[in-house]
């Protein structure tokens, strides 16, 4: 990347900037388990962990399997006065069928099922070659950028809290039983949060950068 060398003689590859407040630091890679935070605004810049790649791959695989299973198995079952009704997560997401509300169905399904699923698949695509010391997969940087851009739109954990609220509202009205998908979804949310905590974005970008040259 010599074409991008700055007007000063300084090599910018030895620098790191804070994405939140634009402060610049000389890069001083922390050891495993340590964290480098921005001194000015406190944003976490680098937080490498030993074996994080393998752990994230394992978590991502479990998340992908759990999402698919949790989507199709019965999620909750309601019964009152001899009548029962059981739904899956996909059915819950696609409940908005009244005219223009159809768009809301698509959005809900994307937010709680498809975006989380796409994000784990993208992270598997990016991380597996890196962890196994192979050259990055084709379009890996684009894949990881997409995965990062989708991060705020992955709302599985919010759906889980929504369940809790809905359950309390319904229990006066009828009996509610938890299906297998309910427990899968609970585990899923914990794994998604854990995976997100483990992932050090800077380390992934750095690894992608090094292997490309």
């Amino acid at each position, binding site marked *: 990347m010599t074409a991008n060398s700055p*007007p000063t003689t300084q090599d910018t590859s030895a*620098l790191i900037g804070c994405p939140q407040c634009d402060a610049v630091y000389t890069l001083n890679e922390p050891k495993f388990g340590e964290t480098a935070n921005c001194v000015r605004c406190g944003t976490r810049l680098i937080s490498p962990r030993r074996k994080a790649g393998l752990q994230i791959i394992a978590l991502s695989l479990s998340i992908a399997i759990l999402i698919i299973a949790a989507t199709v198995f019965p999620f909750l079952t309601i019964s009152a006065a001899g009548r029962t009704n059981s739904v899956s997560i996909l059915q819950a997401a696609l409940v908005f069928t009244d005219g223009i509300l159809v768009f809301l169905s698509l959005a809900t399904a994307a937010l709680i099922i498809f975006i989380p699923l796409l994000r784990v698949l993208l992270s598997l695509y990016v991380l597996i070659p890196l962890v196994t010391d192979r050259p990055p997969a084709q379009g890996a940087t684009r894949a990881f*950028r997409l995965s990062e851009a989708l991060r705020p739109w992955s709302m599985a954990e919010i759906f889980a809290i929504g369940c809790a609220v809905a359950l309390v509202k319904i229990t006066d009205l009828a009996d509610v039983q938890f299906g297998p998908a309910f427990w899968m979804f609970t585990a899923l949310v914990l794994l998604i949060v854990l995976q997100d905590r483990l992932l050090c974005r800077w380390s992934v970008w750095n690894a992608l950068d090094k292997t490309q040259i």
Partner: protein
Amino acid sequence: MVGMERAGQNSDIKSARSLGMVTCRRCSRVWAADTPVCGRCGHHIRSRDDTSLQRVWALWFVGLMCYVPANLYPMLRTQTLVNKDESTIIGGAVDLAHHGSWGIAAIILFASVLIPVTKFLAVAFLAISVARPSRVSPHHRQVLFEIVEYIGRWSMIDIFVVAIMASLVQLNTLATISPGLASLFFALSVIFTMLSAQAFDSRLIWDAQARASATRNVTSNTGTDPIKATHTP
């Protein structure tokens, strides 16, 4: 993680812009100021997003406009053996409170009224505060921005509650719940306020402070060496 020692160091921190460089907001790689696309991650980079505030306000207004019908149209239609009932967001919470479910009423009012309204106010405050001098410290505004970005997504909870209830409570004549038009407007309002917060360039918060300290430390400002990031075990 331990907090950073900030005292006395603020004036030493240089922004990429003041060093003639630009930071990629996606992967935090630093480049020369005129680099259009990050050579590491391919993200489009701009030293400062000039259109940031315009987009913040435009999306903010759309979000606000969607929030009005979200409160006027019914959110839930409940049909039981004896009666048919349509309730708005606030109406539904008031009903719950009348039935004695104070906790749930509070959660719903918190997620669907307090959070969205606070979010509108907070984004407006941040956008105004970078356009004119503000007495609130950049730290507090940065924290406010991070809270807004984090909590904005959680307003979606109401939509998910409606989805679960409406899909589950389908007991033919006994009781049926179906979603109302307000759910669409509410979701749109949440999405547009999230986009509005994302359009905000938080680096603008720190530029004003940098300008202030630059005039203050104009004599001591000699070196251009960036300082080292501190590590905490």
